[in-house]
């Protein structure tokens, strides 16, 4: 395994060849698009894990570009079964580990972490039942959704993560319908409602936050869920160099709140833009979506969704603090890493 640091610096990641040699968990030479947000997400997460890790992957962009017979970009044990089963497959692997450890076939001190990656199609939609069941059963795994708000591997169709008004190939902008009609499904909240020990939203541009959340997640026994926004250069149609700029705008406009939830009870909003940027700025940067700027009523719905959700999160955070106080629990300590 690669020599890994507690929290690698961005500059170290950028020079991964020297720092990590051929042992990057996801090696260079894969076939993802220039400017794709997925590789940084995967590497930020896997490099935050200092012990052996086994990965399961839903069918999708990450999967089709990294394991193409007869070569593989994966330097960690990796399994892909199908579109909808990433959660349940990693649950199977974790169960095997558990029983074989119990039987003494795997040494007692051999620690392995189990991580599943799926896009929003494989997580919000077709894999949702398996995800929910895996969470309910409390398998000791980390599920990561790289959320690019649509079926990008099939050329951009609508998913339940696609926002109001966005163009997709199944929600075109026509004379009577302007893109997708429905708001995004809030999967992070749904996963929090499972009462699992750790759920969080993150963005790849805040590298240290994502790394810290990964470390926090793997320090906890049980099912953990990370929802990471992943701007898609190809389908959202922005320039490849703007991926992180888009991610940053999503957070600065409060479109993508960065927060974490412990036990489905204690909520913490990690980043609070004091003066949120207007959503128009984020939308205008995305040709898939910028047509809505011409439709004030659609724009209004989008802003309303953002404001209401943001307000709700702040209330949940306040409520959590009161709840923790009532229970005699140190609220801030809940969110700290074990070593902090």
């Amino acid at each position, binding site marked *: *395994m690669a020599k890994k640091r507690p929290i690698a610096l961005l500059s170290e990641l950028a020079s991964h060849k020297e720092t990590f040699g051929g042992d990057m968990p996801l090696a260079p030479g894969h076939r993802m698009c220039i400017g794709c947000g997925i590789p940084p997400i995967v590497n930020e997460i896997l490099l935050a894990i200092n012990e*052996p*890790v*086994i990965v*399961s*992957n839903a069918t999708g962009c990450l*999967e*089709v570009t990294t*394991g*193409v*017979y*007869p070569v*593989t970009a*994966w*330097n*960690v*044990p*990796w*399994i*892909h*079964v*199908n579109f*909808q*089963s990433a959660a*349940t*497959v*990693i*649950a*199977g*692997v974790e*169960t*095997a*580990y*558990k*029983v*074989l450890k*119990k*039987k003494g*076939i*795997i040494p007692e001190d051999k620690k*392995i972490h189990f991580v599943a990656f799926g896009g929003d199609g494989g997580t919000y939609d077709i894999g949702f*039942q*398996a995800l*929910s*069941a895996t969470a309910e*059963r409390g398998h000791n795994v980390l599920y990561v959704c790289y959320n690019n708000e649509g079926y990008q591997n099939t050329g951009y169709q609508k998913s339940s993560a696609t926002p109001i008004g966005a163009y997709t190939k199944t929600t075109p902008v026509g004379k009577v319908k302007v893109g997708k009609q429905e708001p995004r499904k809030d999967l992070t909240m749904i996963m929090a409602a499972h009462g699992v020990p750790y759920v969080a939203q993150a963005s790849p541009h805040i590298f240290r936050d994502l790394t810290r959340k990964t470390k926090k997640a793997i320090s906890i026994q049980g099912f953990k869920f990370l929802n990471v926004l992943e701007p898609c250069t190809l389908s959202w149609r922005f320039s490849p160099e703007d991926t992180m700029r888009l991610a940053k705008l999503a957070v600065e406009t409060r479109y993508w709140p960065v927060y974490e939830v412990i036990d489905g009870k204690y909520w913490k909003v990690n980043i609070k833009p004091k003066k949120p940027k207007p959503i128009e700025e984020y939308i205008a940067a995305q040709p898939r979506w910028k047509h809505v700027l011409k439709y004030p009523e659609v724009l209004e719905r989008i802003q309303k969704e953002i404001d209401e959700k943001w307000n709700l999160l702040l209330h949940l955070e306040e409520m959590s603090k009161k709840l923790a106080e009532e229970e005699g629990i140190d609220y801030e300590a809940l969110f700290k890493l074990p070593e902090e």
Partner: protein
Amino acid sequence: MAQTKVIALTGNQAAAEAMRQINFDVAAVYPISPQTELMGFFAEYVANGEVDTEMVAVDGEHSAMATCIGAAAAGARTITASAGPGIAYMLENLYIASGMRIPLVLLDVNRALSAPLSIHCDHGDSMLTRDTGWISIFSENAQEAYHNIIMSVKISEKAMFPIIVNYDGYIVSHSIEDVEILDDESVRDFVGPSDINRIPYPLLNTEKPVTYGATAQPDYYTECKYQQHVDFLKVYDIVREVFDEFAQISGKRYDLIEEYKTEDAEYIGISMGSSFGTLKDAVDRLRDQGKKVGAIKIRLYRPFPVKEVAQALSRAKGVVVLDRADSFDGIGGPLFKDVSTALLATDNNPFVHNFIYGLGGREIHEEEFMRAFDRLERLEKGIETRENFVEYLQVRE
């Protein structure tokens, strides 16, 4: 030789007993009749600490098979069980398990497919699996189900292919019969201990990372499938070997097919599963009337025992294939097509007719099988004619 004892058990109880003795590492479970009580029995063993098995009560059969693939690829000895619509629901993953060369066991407690909904037995569910690249074995009764499950672990792990053990829903699964049980130690010695290195590339060996389930473009897909094809043909010998090894401990010698009074038979009936006893009774009664008839049971269904079937039919004048599932294809039932194809391997050219029987749990009686032989003989002799190769044996028109 193993020590044995005879106990009255249902098919599901006998299957649960085999699972207990094998002490599988992982079992994925999801309820569906008539399989449900099997995993219920097994859950008792888990709850009482009689096995080390981790039982995963999943959200559906699709997830059951995905969980099994994950666990088995990790290196665990793994099993699940289902029936009818559950088999249909997990179908996508059956192809994935065999394509990834993952040894694991699936018990199919045979049940009809909807619609109309029927929880009762036929082989429609198993016929869905015939092209999935799984080894498939049929059991006539609880005794065979018990034996087949024990042997299936070894066959699957030697062949590096997943395996389905079929036994008829309700007729076998819920009927009590005397079952000869082997002692625990002999079964555990026979299947061998659990170990991640039973398979060449366990995911749990993190020192040697492997990629399972890569994409293959047109430049490699064919080669992957060809390797699967070539290795699947090796399954015949592996099954024979394991049958032989099993005879050493059980005293019961199995073959890929079972023949009954076929040596001098002019007309031969072929079936699978629980109806074979009825078919043998029909043969006996016809023999009493002076008819030269015989019967064949297909035990190994996939890969299909082409040579054995061809050999067994090499002197027959007529063959009636009894299918417990319809194909709705204008040709005939699945077994009919398999047998007809196998006949290409013999110079003999018997007249072949096909009957569909026993759908959705419809009981089958000797008289009906006798009528099937009668119709076969009349067709073969030109006394009667047919419009199609396939007819329904038991139907109110």
